[in-house]
């Protein structure tokens, strides 16, 4: 097996090889660390790399496997966005304010991955405090498919690391699309679960009523394996759902024949670049060839997503950062600082109007999902923007973040699970993502559709040329 093939193994395949004794966790971990050493100077996907510690953990996991341990992710090297608390390991949230912050505890998801046997490679780069703008101390993560473009945000480091074969999987957070958007730009799978399905304890918040935690992976099966390891009730997160879902990895092989999928026509039009529309419609056609029944559906409030989510994000984020904003405004990047200040000017009636509209949006999506098993539209209307594109603009039509959030923010507002999967490429070779939205707690159907789609796709294993 070539070094590149080793680095690009799926988690599922790596686990099979580990079980068969054909590869060790130390070899897997070394392959990732070697690629990080070679490529990350160009990609800037990691803030902290745990070379020696990761290798020591890998050797320990190899010993555990020899002793009969069969934990579900035993020996699999993964990465965490740098806002998940890691005991004894710096956790910056991409900020200068937390540049030297070393938590004394693990986030719940950090602990759950550790309990599942995963090996932590390092902490990935991200937009400052997950708001959408990079801090100059860390810089922007470049897109593995074209280095002059962004990996997207805010979980861009996690997406780029997975797409570049520098981690077998990763976790990100998603407040307005921060898992799905970089997943789409980097050509991988990103899952934002149902609100409350994955604990946020120990995760630096952006906006608590919109924040979600989920996996990024190269295949739907890998995303399911990661998701199953981190999902479940956590009394330490006040928003954690006590409702148990079913494991998602076990149902992936069921065909999608007969599933009903609603095509949200408006979101095939709003700001959608022609090349993105072509690739997304090709993806829809593949779903139909797989036996899914696709019909148009109208979401009355689809044009109000950005208008609704922004006052909530701004007000909640400013509430969280208020003290730092007063005492150390110079430590924020200019764009984050401006957005946080704008949050102080959100009126209570606007915050409440947004929350009220949000309830209607949730009812509307629930109603649509009584007729459909999933909804579909492009994850983003655009391909990965060029570097330095994320700035606050005086016009919404010119604001990249605004354009993006209008496509991904719906599921944050309503709490429904949503997944981005690669549906094709533009003529320029840039990946395009197709987004699926499902019923509450029904991540399994989304992962099943993505798995079947990935199996049938013409270029499931296409990799960036690095």
């Amino acid at each position: 097996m070539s070094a590149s093939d080793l680095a690009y193994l799926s988690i599922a395949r790596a686990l099979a090889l580990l079980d068969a004794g054909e590869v060790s966790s130390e070899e897997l971990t070394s392959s990732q660390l070697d690629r990080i050493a070679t490529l990350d100077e160009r990609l800037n996907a990691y803030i902290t790399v745990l070379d020696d510690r990761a290798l020591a953990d890998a050797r320990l996991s190899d010993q555990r496997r020899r002793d009969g341990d069969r934990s579900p992710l035993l020996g699999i090297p993964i990465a965490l966005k740098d806002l998940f608390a890691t005991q004894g390991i710096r956790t910056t949230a991409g900020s200068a304010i937390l540049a030297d912050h070393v938590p004394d505890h693990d986030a719940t998801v950090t602990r759950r991955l550790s309990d599942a046997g995963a090996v932590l490679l390092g902490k990935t780069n991200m937009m400052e405090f997950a708001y959408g703008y990079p801090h100059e101390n860390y810089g922007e993560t470049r897109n593995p498919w074209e280095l002059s473009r962004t990996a997207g945000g805010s979980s861009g480091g996690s997406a780029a690391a997975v797409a570049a074969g520098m981690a077998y999987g990763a976790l990100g957070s998603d407040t307005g699309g921060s898992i799905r958007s970089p997943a789409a730009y980097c050509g991988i799978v990103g899952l934002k679960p149902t609100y409350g399905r994955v604990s946020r304890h120990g995760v630096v918040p952006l906006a608590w009523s919109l924040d979600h935690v989920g996996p990024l992976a190269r295949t739907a099966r890998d995303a399911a394996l990661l998701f199953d390891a981190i999902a479940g009730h956590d009394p330490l997160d006040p928003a954690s759902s006590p409702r148990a879902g079913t494991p998602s990895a076990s149902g992936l092989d069921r065909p999608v024949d007969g599933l009903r999928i609603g095509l949200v026509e408006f979101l095939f039009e709003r700001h959608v670049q022609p090349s993105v529309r072509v690739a997304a419609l090709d993806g829809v056609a593949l779903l139909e060839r797989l036996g899914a029944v696709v019909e148009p559906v109208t979401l009355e409030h689809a044009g109000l997503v950005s208008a609704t989510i922004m006052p909530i994000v701004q007000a909640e984020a400013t509430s969280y950062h208020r003290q730092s904003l007063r005492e150390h405004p110079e430590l924020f990047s200019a764009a984050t600082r401006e957005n946080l200040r704008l949050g102080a000017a959100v009126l209570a009636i606007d915050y409440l109007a947004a929350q009220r509209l949000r309830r209607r949006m949730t009812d509307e999506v629930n109603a649509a999902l009584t007729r459909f098993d999933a909804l579909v539209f492009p994850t983003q209307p655009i391909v990965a923007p060029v570097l330095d594109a994320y700035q606050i603009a005086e016009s919404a039509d010119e604001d990249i973040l605004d354009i993006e959030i209008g496509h991904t923010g719906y599921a944050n507002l309503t709490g429904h699970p949503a997944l981005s999967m690669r549906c094709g490429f533009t003529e320029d070779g840039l990946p395009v993502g197709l987004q699926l939205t499902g019923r509450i707690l029904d991540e399994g159907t989304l992962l099943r559709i993505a798995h079947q789609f990935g199996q049938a796709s013409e270029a499931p294993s296409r990799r960036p040329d690095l």
Partner: protein
Amino acid sequence: MSNDRATDDITALLHVAGLTVSDDEARQLALFHERFAGDRARLRQIALGETEPSVTFAPESEHDEP
């Protein structure tokens, strides 16, 4: 709304939150804040209009003034 008025307004709102900005920063923030004003007026009409007298929450009308 004039830019001077918008600048004064956002300076006052930030002051209430305990935040101080320079005049230049306030002018820039006022421009961005104006960008959201239309969206928020629309939200109020859609989300609050059904239970509240619409004139109370119509920011573009004379009733918006205290």
